[in-house]
């Protein structure tokens, strides 16, 4: 579903991403992990079409993002880390707006919008302006908006920020269910517990470079201790990258 070839991003003189090569399959939940400033959000924003790469290629669903950016965006849903949405629209109007933008026909929009509002427990608030929503409600509305057109690929940056434990559980179950139905999910997160729980594979990125890739068990094997939690594996990988492998 996703093929990244030598993806690179340079801000002024700082290299944020340095030649990322990656392949994510259909129906896979892929987690991108890394310390602050590693290049996770840059990668997510380039996949979402929000940032232009400095070099390399992004191919999504067989379409080259540089050649056919609109075609690529049509099959994407994007959930950013901070839910900035139009404050003066109501929740329902926001979803109607997105349905129009994604070219959904009236019938499917009429069916999907109430479904989404109900699922994310926003139905009661559907006619309130977004400016009166709490952070968690905005985050749920953003997720509802990203899924309204049933995208093939969902790109998520820090999905659980602002969600209460119950909503977080619902969203995790939702992601697993969507992936089972064939949706690919690419998420960047600091939550290693969540990555361990729902991701089929994870990639660890540090200083713009992919330093480890595989299922959580593969990573444990790579650091030589199958009993470690993913958090400890992650810390060891990042420390090794910084200081070199520990010598006994």
């Amino acid at each position: 579903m996703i093929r990244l070839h030598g993806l690179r991003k340079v801000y002024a003189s700082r290299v944020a991403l340095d030649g990322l090569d990656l392949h994510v399959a259909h129906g896979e939940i892929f987690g991108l992990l890394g310390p602050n400033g590693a290049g996770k959000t840059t990668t997510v924003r380039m996949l979402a079409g929000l940032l232009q790469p400095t070099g390399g290629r992004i191919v999504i669903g067989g379409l080259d993002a540089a050649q056919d950016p609109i075609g690529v965006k049509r099959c994407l849903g994007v959930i950013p880390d901070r839910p900035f949405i139009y404050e003066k629209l109501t929740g329902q109007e926001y979803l109607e707006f997105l349905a129009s933008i994604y070219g959904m026909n009236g019938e499917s929009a009429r069916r999907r919008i109430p479904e989404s509002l109900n699922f994310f427990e926003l139905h009661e608030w559907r006619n309130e302006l977004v400016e009166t929503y709490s952070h968690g409600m905005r985050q749920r509305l953003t997720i509802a908006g990203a899924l309204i057109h049933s995208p093939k690929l969902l790109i998520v940056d820090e999905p659980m920020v602002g969600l209460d434990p119950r909503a977080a559980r619902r969203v995790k179950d939702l992601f697993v269910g969507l992936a089972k139905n064939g949706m690919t999910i690419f998420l960047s997160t600091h939550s290693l517990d969540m990555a361990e729980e729902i991701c089929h594979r994870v990639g660890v990125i540090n200083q713009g470079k992919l330093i480890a890739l595989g299922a959580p068990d593969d990573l444990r094997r790579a650091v030589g201790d199958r009993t470690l939690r993913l958090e400890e594996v992650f810390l060891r990988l990042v420390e090794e990258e910084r200081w070199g492998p520990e010598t006994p």
Partner: protein
Amino acid sequence: MGSGNALILWGRLLAPSLRSARNRLRRPTGRGVAKGLLFALAGAAVWAGVYGGVLRALVYFRSTEAVGDLLVAKLLTMLCLLFLTLLVYSNLVVSLSTLLLSKDLDLLASLPVPAGVVFLRQFSLGLLHSSWMFLLFGTPVFAAYASLYAAPPLSLLVLVVGLAGFLLIPACASGFLILVFGRIFPARRVREAAAVGGILLFAALYLAFRVLQPERLADPGSFRSLLGYTLSLQAPGSPALPSTWLSNLAFEALRGQWSNATFYLSLIVTTGASLTIVLAEVAARIYPSLLSRAQEAGGRRRRRETAGSRPLPVPLRWLPHSLGAVILKDTRTFLRDPTQWSQLVLVAALIIVYLYNFRVLPKERVPLPTFDMENLLAFVNLGLCGFVLVAVAARFVFPLLSLEGRSYWILRAAPMAARDILLGKLLLGLAPILGLGLFLTVASNLVLGSTRLMHVVSAGTTIGISVAAVTLALTFGILYPRFNIENAARIPTGVGGLTYMVTAMAVILAVLAIEAWPTYLLFSARYKARGLSTAEWAAILGLFSAAGILLAGVSALALHRGLRALARLEP
């Protein structure tokens, strides 16, 4: 807590703002230096322009036999009233942000500092931010008066102290109003109520001031008798108004009348100081509860109950779906934000005054044939109308992209080409500006009674100017986006807005320069009832075409640049 300790804390709380300003000055980027220089130059030019213009007018007015000094004093009273009104308005808007909505209030409220000191810190910053405009436009007026009367140096010092006290008075008045509003409404509603109230007040004063026809004071002939004129000049401003105190202080001090000047200086300074002390005392008691209310959401704002998804409104259905959705979203956002739609009241007041000016124009006293005069005015009107369109486009079209704010990611992530985003904003901006332009030219031509030919020339030119003004506004808005500014009125106040205004006005002046000669040729032939030669027709057609090509070329180039910039613009 002693007042000494409070003052020390106040100073410590202000230090970060002062340090931020110092850091900006010390470590400017390359673009920052250019911006700073441009602003400094523009500021100096405005100051010098106001000073020169006012001094010239004062010299002229003072030369009026017998009533020269009265006329000049009356003018100062009117100007001081205008300053007071503007200061109350600007303090109201700025204090609202600094006292109730500022982003650093969370931090300040969590510090072990009395709320009264926090209030004083925010009040001081509000006073600074809302008074700088007065320094730019007010001080050159007083400097011109000082030059006119060759004022002694001591009078300038007296005036500076008086001005400082004067600035405190509208700031305190606004502070009291904000405290009262803050007790009644949640912070978000206070902002909206204050914005709408302030604009209504401003528009009402603007209309009232214009309808009073202040220009008649410079024209004794418009009064029935000399006595009526003199009485009108001698009528003092209300003695209860601080603006009257300031004008009296200035007038007396600049002429070296020290005993009167001391009286007015004491009145201003003691009023300013005592209002500040009372405000600080009141704020110490009620500001903590306001800070708490400021953190609360504005309450639920239920819109019309709807079931299921609705189709686009009929006028937008002929557009592609995504384009219609963007226009609908922008329209709803505009109409639901009182700080936005209330600005339309100002535009309405502007239109009324614009047309009123033409109605009260003393055409009969101009020594030109009526036919020429009306058409000459109609032609000059094209430039004025162009200026109005550019100003309105700067306020409403220039910010269209920046108003996407931090939600801009939604459009960028959506399957919409940059071309469609640009087209949506263009259609949204063009319809009202074009309508306004045509209304202004047609209505003012009707008021002036200009010929049908002039109607055609005006309408054609206005259509071209409207398109150019809108495309340029959009493009400069894209080239200089300000996504972090929530207040739409502040978006065009930076370098981008200024560059847009200068560019658009230059284009309009160039078009009028090109059209002046063929228009004159057409009218003079008609007036003298003579035919035009083939060469003259060719020149007329050629020059009108050149103006059309210039406007079309500028619009096309602007759209091209805007599209390229938008395609590259990352959230």
